[in-house]
Structures are given as structure tokens and as C-alpha cells.
């Protein structure tokens, strides 16, 4: 397997742009999400150091990291980048406290009660982009990153963390796990997905005794191999590891999926797979 991990890392190194960042795909412009995941995967290497340097100076506006140079903020990717910076012991040029403060000032919009679903639309956590509704994935990434920084930063507001946790609990599917957004729509339950469930579980590590977390962990243990992709399997592996659960089947499935992951060349997926499979990793970036 060490060859496989080496191939993943080598593929990442080959895909690194001259500016030190990564696009989602080879030859594409550097973007925040793949650059942050690659920095995590390559930490301790020269390429990882270059990635950390890029994150240090990543373009921002009012403390919010832009999804790409000249683009707009994306709160989920801002959260991922904060996780990478924490793991790489990296500061942003504008000060990490500014990034944390800015992330807490933005909220998903509050919607009026709706008869299309059972969720509580008054809860506000994080949306993907400004002026839109809160969704599971951005909420989970932002919550995890703020929890990760909280011990070192007294500016992290417990009330924001609490509301984000309540939103995730509220959006969980009846059988455990998370869809990308609603748990039901127009009277029908929606099914959970592996990647969103894994990210939400990572964000709720402090709530292990909550019935929703227990149900969701059971879902992930049972269905962790059901979605064949580098991203889904890597996130499932990370979540199961962090919760101390058996992960052999997920790890094997991820190794089996690598040829397709490599062929499709998505740097974010390759970096996540490399990080999850590395025997050197203690998964500290995702562990609270």
C-alpha cells in the first residue's frame, strides 16, 4: 500500500501549480479547497511547505478567504482552510483571529417556517456562500474548525457552536446520518449520504452520547463502503478512526477505489485519500 500512497502524493506534487496551490484538476487555477487538503496531505514535505505558504497569503476580503483569487468567499472551504492552517501551525497574513472572527460574523439566512419539510428553518449556522440558507456540509466544516481553534482562541463564541450543533442534530435523518440538507421533503424521508454523515460526525465528536450521533455512527459503520469514491471513503475512514471504530472494510474499499480516484484527477479527493491512508497520520487535523 505504501506504493499507492506514494502514487497519491506524487500525483499531488505533479499537480501543484507554479503559485504553490492546487486547482481541482491538473492545469487549472489554484482553489482554496484542494490547496487546503493538499497542504494537510503533504505536511512535512517541501510541497506541503509551499502549500502552507500559499495559504498564509491566500486572498481574503474582510477576513473571509476567497474561494479563488478574484472570487467570492465560500464558508465551507474557509473552514477547511482553517483546519489545514491549524494542523500546519500556520497563520494567515491577516491574522488567524481575523479569519475566526469573520467566520463567526456570517450566518446562513433564517427562513420562514415551511410546509415542505420538518426542519427548523430558524436555526442559523453556515451556508456555502453569503446570503443563502445553512446546509450540513458548510456547517459541519465551520463547526469543526472553530472547535479545533477554540482552545487557542477565546474569541470563539460558544453560542455559535451551540446553534450549529443544534442545526446538525435537527437535520439528521431519522435512520441516522445526514443528507446534504433536509432530512425530509414533501413528507418523504431523504436518505443519508456517507460524506456528509462523516463530516457531521467529525464536527460532533464532543457529543458522542447524543442519540443522533450514536445512530449516525451506526449508519456509517454499516454503510461506510456503500459510496464508492475517494472522497466518500476517505471521509468515512477518518470519521471511523476518530471515533475509534473498525475501519478495515472502508480502508480496503478506499484502496480498491484509488485507480478511479487517480484517473479522475480531482486533487481534493486525492489529497483526502492520501491523508486518510497515510500510516504516519494520527488524524490530528480532524480530532478534537
Amino acid at each position: 500500500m505504501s506504493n499507492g500512497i506514494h502514487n497519491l502524493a506524487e500525483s499531488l506534487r505533479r499537480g501543484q501549480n507554479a503559485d504553490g496551490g492546487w486547482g481541482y484538476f491538473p492545469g487549472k487555477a489554484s482553489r482554496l479547497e484542494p490547496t487546503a487538503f493538499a497542504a494537510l496531505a503533504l505536511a512535512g514535505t517541501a510541497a506541503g511547505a509551499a502549500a502552507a505558504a500559499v495559504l498564509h497569503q491566500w486572498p481574503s476580503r474582510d477576513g473571509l478567504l476567497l474561494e479563488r483569487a478574484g472570487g467570492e468567499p465560500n464558508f465551507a472551504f474557509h473552514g477547511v482552510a482553517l483546519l489545514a492552517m491549524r494542523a500546519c501551525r500556520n497563520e494567515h497574513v491577516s491574522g488567524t483571529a481575523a479569519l475566526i472572527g469573520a467566520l463567526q460574523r456570517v450566518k446562513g439566512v433564517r427562513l420562514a417556517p415551511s410546509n415542505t419539510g420538518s426542519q427548523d428553518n430558524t436555526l442559523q449556522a453556515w451556508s456555502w456562500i453569503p446570503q443563502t440558507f445553512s446546509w450540513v456540509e458548510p456547517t459541519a466544516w465551520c463547526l469543526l474548525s472553530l472547535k479545533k481553534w477554540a482552545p487557542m482562541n477565546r474569541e470563539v463564541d460558544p453560542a455559535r457552536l451551540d446553534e450549529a450543533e443544534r442545526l446538525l442534530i435537527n437535520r439528521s435523518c431519522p435512520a441516522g446520518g445526514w443528507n446534504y440538507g433536509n432530512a425530509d421533503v414533501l413528507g418523504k424521508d431523504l436518505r443519508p449520504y456517507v460524506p456528509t454523515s462523516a463530516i457531521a460526525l467529525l464536527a460532533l465528536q464532543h457529543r458522542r452520547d447524543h442519540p443522533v450521533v450514536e445512530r449516525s455512527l451506526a449508519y456509517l459503520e454499516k454503510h461506510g463502503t456503500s459510496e464508492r469514491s475517494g472522497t466518500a471513503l476517505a471521509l468515512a475512514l477518518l470519521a471511523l478512526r476518530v471515533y475509534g471504530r473498525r475501519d478495515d472494510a472502508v480502508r480496503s474499499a478506499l484502496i480498491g477505489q484509488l485507480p478511479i480516484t487517480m484517473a479522475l484527477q480531482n486533487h481534493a479527493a486525492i489529497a483526502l485519500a492520501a491523508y486518510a491512508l497515510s500510516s504516519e497520520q494520527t488524524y490530528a487535523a480532524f480530532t478534537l
Partner: protein
Amino acid sequence: MPSVQNRRMPRSHSDGGCVLARRDFLGAMAVPFVAAACGRPPYDPALFHRPSMSAVGLFPAADYAADFSEIVARGLRELGIDVRGRHVLLKPNMVEYESNTAINTHPLVVAGAALALRSAGAADVVVGEGPGHRRDIEYLVTQTGLYDHLREHRIRFVDLNHDDVRYVPLRSRFTGLETIALSSELLQADFIVTMPKLKTHHWAGMTASMKNLFGTVPGAVYGWPKNILHMKGIENSILDLNATIRPNLAIVDAVTAMEGDGPIMGKPRHVGFIAMGSDVVSVDATCARIIGLDPARLPYLRTAGRFLGNLDVRRIQQRGEPVSRYATTFDVLDRFKPIRLERP
């Protein structure tokens, strides 16, 4: 190679458009032309040429064992479509994977179309998709089996959610937005083929060639499920996307379609044809009539029929099989029952 932007994109307008939000949908059904109520049309008629007649082909495909390369090749011939030297982007509809359902454009239809277009002289053919909520495209192409066909036929795949983007001016202003970010690869293509699965849709009534363009909007820029466009109104977004991207051809997978609570939780419904045409309004209007919906009462189709293409059956030239061969009545949610066609 001329880019789509250079070839088709006009300068942007500075006037605001009218916003038709999802919640206004049913209300809009009773309004002949919502945009007119806002004072001025959200498009410049001079920018659009609606043909006097539009050809729509219906070609039989009993099941997915059919030779879709041959079916699409027949369609290209009978519709007189020339793709020689063109850089083609096929945009299938890939939403979610569930076994034994009819959510996605079948990979055999996508592969068959790619082979037919190559044989017809296209310079290159790529497949591109940017799913609306499952942003893990590797999962979708793996589980649906599309990946195997892409590999076998050496067809390149473009993740439209995560590709590089460029902002282009919108050619109509129903959403009120002035510009939209689109995939660079999409903009570089000079022949765009929308390849939907024919389905009923719990918000828009029906999803086919036009609604399929939601998947061209980059999620990395706009979030999932393309939040901004949903907030600006699904119907408005469908209109602006089609007015701006102007797909050159529609190839609709209606071999097994979906009825009821589409686009994900509906039931498979065998219909048995592939629809093709270069006027997406005519193609979708024909599909609507086949499944028993009145296209003139689907707000986005009705509005599109005023400037993007032909809705009126008298302006649609049928090729291949007659509509009557496939005409049926799809199960729809209660809210859409008032727009059903009356069948004899």
C-alpha cells in the same frame, strides 16, 4: 476556435429583471406573462431568433440494449445536424444514484451519443456535469457505470462544479442577475448537447432539456444545490441559463423516464424513445405533451416559447415516430394535476 462567449454572448443589460421565485410558481400559472407585469420584458427580442419551424425527432428504443450510437446517428441525419469540426460537450443529467430507478441519463445513451457525434465528424467530444447536490462526482460516475464507458471509449469527463470559471453576461434577466460564472470548458465548447432524463419534477413540473442546464452552474462558486439560482427562482434560472448557453442540440433519454415525485423519488416509467432536436423549447414541449402535461401551462416553457423557441405544435415538425405512438399520462403531484392535458 470561437468560444461560446465570443460567438453567442451579447453585452449585458443594465436593467433589472423580474424575479419569479419558487413560492410564486402556482400563482404564476394563472398569469399569462409574469415578466410583462414588471414593466418591460427581461430580454431584448432583437437578440433572439425564433425559427419559423422546429424539427423534433422521436426515435424508438425499446430498452437500454438498443444501439444508441445508431439511434443518435439517425437523429443527426434526419434532423440535418452537422457537427463536423465542432468541439462538443455532452451534458447528461446526473443527480443521484439509486439502483432500479430512473434518475440519471443512462450511461449507454451518453456513450452512444458520444460515439455517434465522433463518427459524424466532431473534432472532440467531452462529457460534463455538475450535479446539483451530490458534489462527489466520482461517486456518481462510478456508481452509475458511466466511468466504465468513459474509460472504454476514451471520453474525457469535465466536472462542471469544480472547473475553472469565467463570468459571462446573461442574455436575459429573469433572475435579475447580470452575469453568471460558467465552466471554462463549457464556454470553450462550440456545440453543447443537453442530454436529460425525462422526468416529472416536484418544483418545476417537468425536467428535460432546459432544466438540465442547472447542472452547468458551478457549485464551487454558487454552493449546493446552486443556492443562488434557487433563491432567484427555478423558472427564472432555467430561462436565463438557456438564453445564455443556447444549447445546440437536445437528446432526451425517455427510454425509461420518471413519473410522480421526480426528479429523485419518482417511479420509473417505460416510454421507449429518444427525443432529439436543436430547439430545446420544441423538444421539451413535445416531451410535455407526450407525458400528458400542457407545455403552455408550465411557466418556464410558456415564457421560453415567446423568445427562445417554438412551443406551438403547429410550428413543430415531427420526425421519426409520431407523438401519438408514445402519448400517455404520467402520474404527477397534486399541484400539477391542473396542468394536465385532457386526453380523449
